[in-house]
């Protein structure tokens, strides 16, 4: 299966589906690629359509950004 494409889950006869809501009978899945960039900053990368790759940086010290803003202000 190509990455970034939705496919439907294939059930076998042995799967117990009796009590599932109907939409589960056509459940979609997509494979996701995780990787780290060259700065060793963690990125979660999902390939979607239109050839666009959304890469979301997960800042490790995001909660301290307020302090950073304050520092910059005080330097001014």
């Amino acid at each position, binding site marked *: 299966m190509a990455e970034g494409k939705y496919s439907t889950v294939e059930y076998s006869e042995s799967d117990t589906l009796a009590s599932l809501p109907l939409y589960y009978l*056509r459940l979609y899945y997509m494979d996701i690629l*995780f990787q780290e960039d060259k700065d060793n900053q963690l990125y979660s990368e999902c390939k979607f359509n239109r050839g666009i790759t959304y890469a979301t940086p997960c800042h490790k010290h995001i909660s301290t*950004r307020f*302090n950073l*803003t304050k520092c910059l202000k005080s330097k001014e």
Partner: protein
Amino acid sequence: MFGEKTSNVIIIFCQYTSATDGIEQVLHWLDHLQAPYLRVNCDKERLSLEYLDLANDQIVLRHNESTFDLADVSAVWYWRGGVSLAVPQYDPSSIVQEIFSEDFGREAVKNIGMEQRTIASYVFGKLFKKPHINDPYRTSVNKLQVLEIAQEIGLKVPKTYLLSSSKQIAELAGESSDYITKAAHEGIMTTIGRRFYNGLTANLADIESTLLNEKFHPSLVQQCIEKQYEIRSYCFMDEFYSMAIFSQNDDTTKTDFRAFTQDCPNRYVPYKLPKEIEEKLLRLIKRLGLNCGSFDLIYSAEDEYQFLEVNPVGQWMMTSVPCNYYLEKRTALWLKENTVQ
């Protein structure tokens, strides 16, 4: 706060590890606007109560190593994650048992839990009386109730059923229309290993009849509306930012545009809903007690606007980016100034 007294602080509740789409962009704008903010990653950290003085209306909260006064908070943005206070956790079998019994311990833990919820509910109730975007206690709406209210307001909605047997499905199949099925709450969305599962809308005709049991879990079934195009409309502080999605011509996106492929991307264009529809959607959002929401509509082959559902917190980057609405900037400006710009 943070070593020295600061006022006009914006509190942002979000997540650290997932659903970060939009957060970073708003934070960059807040940095640019030099608006002080505190980001609380709800999946990793929580605020805790330091002190409350009811008579003087003072509440002091702690975030990691810092404390701040609720009076210094100018605005709040709830984006994602569970909002709760950090509280001590008790194990009924190891702590209270030593004094009384395990049965007493279990009752005590339940009782202390209610104590903690009472405190949290008061503190967050006060916090969300500040100018805010979204409400952590209204992150989910009942789709069936919403459809009922939408009908009352005068919006057109597809015929909707909850079915629980293959006989009922067969009766519907005798009618001329197609039908779809989707989650009555929210479709399952989860990542197991490197595989992301998504419970999208499915056409009943695409479900293998051999998989159907005589009786099954009550399932939401709706008339499939033949569409000219879909509309995603984000309502932010009474303003609508809409986008048309031309998903009808591709078999993979015809039923649910989220099942898009690289081979045949949908076209997204800025769109203006008629004033009458916007007014009805606004009435709906007010009835639901929301101040923001992302609406899904269809413009049908019969030239009618059909309302499908509303997502209270909403994903707006998918509308903002293709349509150049700069909602991330508008959000930051609203948080700083409390006015729509």
